């Protein structure tokens, strides 16, 4: 006897799972369940790892990535580095359903979202701005993801220029954990 319907999610994000289950329980599709479930995380910011106001980049901007895949048709919709739109997985669903493409990125993905009726607004919050300010002004931009550049990115902020000498091994600092992940 198959154990279906069913939904499984990464990490301990219960509210998203509950929403996805509600969709499945009432006869909704798996696609709807994934979209609506993940949308809860985007709205509730799920430990700062999903949605607006989390994980600012080097410029202090939050951008969003999302993917949705239909296992029945093998159709895919995805957005990467989506700027100024909160509902990333719904924009991905629109890529799936309103284009023959699979993946839109950056500012041009934002233009697509705007055409599809999504509000365009800043994803920065006071908390994410403060986090970025601390990293920039108090922590000397540490950690960061640069290597083989000068000034030494392990101690300094940019802008950087490349160095050609690679005789010294630069170990990658561990920056990914349960509070900071893809």
């Amino acid at each position, binding site marked *: 006897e198959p154990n*279906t319907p069913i939904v499984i999610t990464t990490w301990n994000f219960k509210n998203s799972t509950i929403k996805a289950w509600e969709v499945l329980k009432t006869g909704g599709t798996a696609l709807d369940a994934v979209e609506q*479930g993940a949308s809860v995380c985007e709205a509730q910011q799920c430990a700062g790892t999903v949605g607006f106001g989390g*994980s600012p*980049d080097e410029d202090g901007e939050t951008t969003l990535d999302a993917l*949705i*895949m239909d*296992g029945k048709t093998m159709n895919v919709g995805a957005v990467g580095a989506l700027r100024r739109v909160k509902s990333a997985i719904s924009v991905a669903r629109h890529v799936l359903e309103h284009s023959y493409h699979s993946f839109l990125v950056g500012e041009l993905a934002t233009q697509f979202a705007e055409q599809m009726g999504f509000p365009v607004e800043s*994803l920065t919050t006071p908390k994410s701005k403060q986090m970025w300010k601390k990293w920039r002004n108090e922590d000397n931009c540490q950690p960061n993801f640069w290597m083989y550049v000068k000034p030494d990115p392990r101690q300094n902020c940019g802008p950087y220029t490349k160095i050609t000498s690679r005789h010294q091994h630069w170990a990658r600092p561990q*920056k*990914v954990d349960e509070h900071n992940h893809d």
Partner: protein
Amino acid sequence: TIGMVAVDRQGDIAAGTSTNGARFKMPGRIGDSPIPGAGAYADNTVGGAAATGDGDVMLRFLPSFLAVEEMRRGAAPTAAAETAVARIAAHYPAFMGAVVALAKDGTYGAACHGIHQFPFVVFDQKAEECRTEHVLC
């Protein structure tokens, strides 16, 4: 990141992810989450999978695709997830990440690396409530 896989009453499967990525990334960077086969993958004939962790490393190994393909070859979901994680760990022993896998019959499993244990949430008709499960890494 949240990664999610669902099977509905018709037996159709979907998978997806949503994330704001790594903290203080270089502008323009994306990780594994939006890459089909890396962040998530689904195939009605087999099942689906989703991944989370260090996206710069994980996207190089398409772990969600690999987990689904392992299930296609007959592996149980837990074994499929373990294979996908082990493939990455063989090259990057210090990486942190996890994979959840869900077969079309509703069996599921997870595997992880680089943290003590990994939590994931399941909701099905057996329990009628969502439950958090853990897998040791």
